[in-house]
């Protein structure tokens, strides 16, 4: 008996000692694209997870000379990324990789497998000449509101830039120049960012529409061209789409609208008229600047099949706009029988069965108790 128990114990131990799967993982704080800065050292901590046996860690350092690893201890280690002061890597995008792989598990018969994981690091080496990246910020505004153009400038160079400034030209929809602005002038230290600001551009007299702006950025004798578009908004709303086919009876009707205003438009709703009769009014909502939204409601259609003219009244901020529409009314499709959820039926049946079982048991207990009371009396007699 004891021998058999020991056999099962050892069998179980053997079974548990066999790895059921092979896995390996590497966990660490994500670094994203690393900007190459000579003289800088970055340290990041990693943990090896899920490995069943010994592992080997390695780094393929690519063009970089001083990327090293600490000793692996308790499945954890550090990665040291050092860019030496005197190392000059040509401008461009580079990568290096950190890997961990299983050492155990190699099969001596059949086809064996191991797992390994690698993390690929991207390093961006900026220009050793003067170079920038910039973006023109042209905000959309409402009629009569001045526009504050800004230019965000990032240094992409290991050299300081003495002065950066810009000229902005504004164009209308037909690409005619309607104004020029000059931004302030500022120095740009290596690998830093600044924002250039232009004086407010007046929009008085300009109609609601789309406009464009072109900025020429000057930096220490070099230039960079930027383009941008913006809108001048009016308190208006545009009808983009609506339910064009309805069935007789109840239908969901949608009205897709777009705000043409640079602020929040409150109390936006629609009324739909078909064949001179109001068929629905939607609930109201608010639209953010230039935002699209869908108004929905249920419409009851009693009209005969055919094409009908109507109109949608769009309400916003106490104003109203009427848009003509055409809707096709079709014959109603046969109604589909709604299925009762299976889970509800199962739960109900189960509960009833249990309740019946409980009642039967209680009755049996009652009868048994009564019998127990009467039997001693009989035996006495």
């Amino acid at each position: 008996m004891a021998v058999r128990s020991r056999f099962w114990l050892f069998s179980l131990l053997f079974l548990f000692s066999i790895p059921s799967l092979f896995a390996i993982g590497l966990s660490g704080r994500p670094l994203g694209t690393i900007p190459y800065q000579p003289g800088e050292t970055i340290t990041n901590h990693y943990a090896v997870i899920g490995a069943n046996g010994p592992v080997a860690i390695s780094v393929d350092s690519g063009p970089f000379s001083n990327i090293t690893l600490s000793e692996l201890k308790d499945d954890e280690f550090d990665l040291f990324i050092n860019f030496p002061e005197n190392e000059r890597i040509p401008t461009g995008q580079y990568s290096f990789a950190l890997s961990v792989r299983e050492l155990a598990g190699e099969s001596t018969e059949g086809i064996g497998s191991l797992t390994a994981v690698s993390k690929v690091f991207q390093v961006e080496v900026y220009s050793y000449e003067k170079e920038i990246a910039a973006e023109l910020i042209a905000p959309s505004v409402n009629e009569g509101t001045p526009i504050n153009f800004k230019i965000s400038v990032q240094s992409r160079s290991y050299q300081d830039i003495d002065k950066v400034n810009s000229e902005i030209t504004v164009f209308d929809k037909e690409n005619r120049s309607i104004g020029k602005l000059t931004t302030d002038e500022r120095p740009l230290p290596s690998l830093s960012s600044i924002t250039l600001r232009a004086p407010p551009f007046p929009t008085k007299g300009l109609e609601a529409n789309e406009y464009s702006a072109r900025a020429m950025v000057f930096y220490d004798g070099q230039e960079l061209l930027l383009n941008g578009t913006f809108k001048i908004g009016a308190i208006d709303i545009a009808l983009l789409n609506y339910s064009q086919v309805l069935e007789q009876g109840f239908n969901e009707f949608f009205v897709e609208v777009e705000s043409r205003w640079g602020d929040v438009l409150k109390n936006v709703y629609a009324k739909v008229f078909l064949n001179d009769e109001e068929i629905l009014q939607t609930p109201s909502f608010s639209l953010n600047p230039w935002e699209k939204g869908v108004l929905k409601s249920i419409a009851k259609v009693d009209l005969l099949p055919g094409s009908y003219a109507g109109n949608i009244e769009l309400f916003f901020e106490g104003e109203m706009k009427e848009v003509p529409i055409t809707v096709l009314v079709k014959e109603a499709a046969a109604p589909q029988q709604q299925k009762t959820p299976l889970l509800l039926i199962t739960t109900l049946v189960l509960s009833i069965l249990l309740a019946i079982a409980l009642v039967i048991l209680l009755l049996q207990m009652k009868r048994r108790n009564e019998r127990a009371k009467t039997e001693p009396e009989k035996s006495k007699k």
Partner: protein
Amino acid sequence: MKAPSDGFLLVLFVLALGVTVASSLVTLQNWGYLGGNFLTGAAVTTAGGEANLTVNAVTSITNQNFTINFGSGYVNASCNFCSMDSNKTFINHFSNGSITSSLEDGRTCCVSFTQVSSGFLLENTGNTNISVGYTCTGNCTHARYVGGTLDPGMGGLEIKVTAQSERQQYGESGGTDTTESCVGGGDLYSQLTTNGWNISNRSAQGGNLDNAGKGDKVYVLLSPRGHWLCGNATSYPLRADNTQDAAVIDVNVTIPHDAIGTGVRTSFNLTFNATSSA
């Protein structure tokens, strides 16, 4: 043995009824049939505080089947070749030229070998998108692994990838896939211009990509130096989502009738490598 008392049975019934009703209510609430939050762990009071949280990027790959072993055997004298697949299939290449495919019962050419029903089940078990490739060590060519003379056009030692949503091999740790894996799409596959498990050797060398992407379920030669199976060093289309994060690598071996039986077991090892951004 003494029969349980009625009181004990009554307690059991009441308990069972309570559990049934409670579990039904919980299920109904989870399924959205009941409104409100009467059974939740939601906080009912709030207090000010500060929490620092860093979410680590975990690059992880799991292989649920670490070995494929066809065992030992020989080619029947009436056959030219015996082919075995890790998806349970035996292929009989008879001397009269006919070729039949069968499971265990119908195999004639592969005598005594072990039927294998599982390939290498690879799964992205981290929280980042990855690419997957392999390298090979050991006897990675047909000549070294098996030997013998193959017919022209025969691969001899081949592998293929099948998305787990189709292969449905048992054992995936995060629930069996329901959607095809390695279909990152868009920017995730921008380097290869297409989606899907790609086992073409050509793609590893940056060659013609016409047949890339839907190269799954097609056997290709095992490459002794390895190649990418999904994505590459800069594109990571195997998502971490549990519904589309796995695939099965199957192996097909062909044994010619003139392969010399050395009596020494032969082997090779595949190292499956998961790569992600850091």
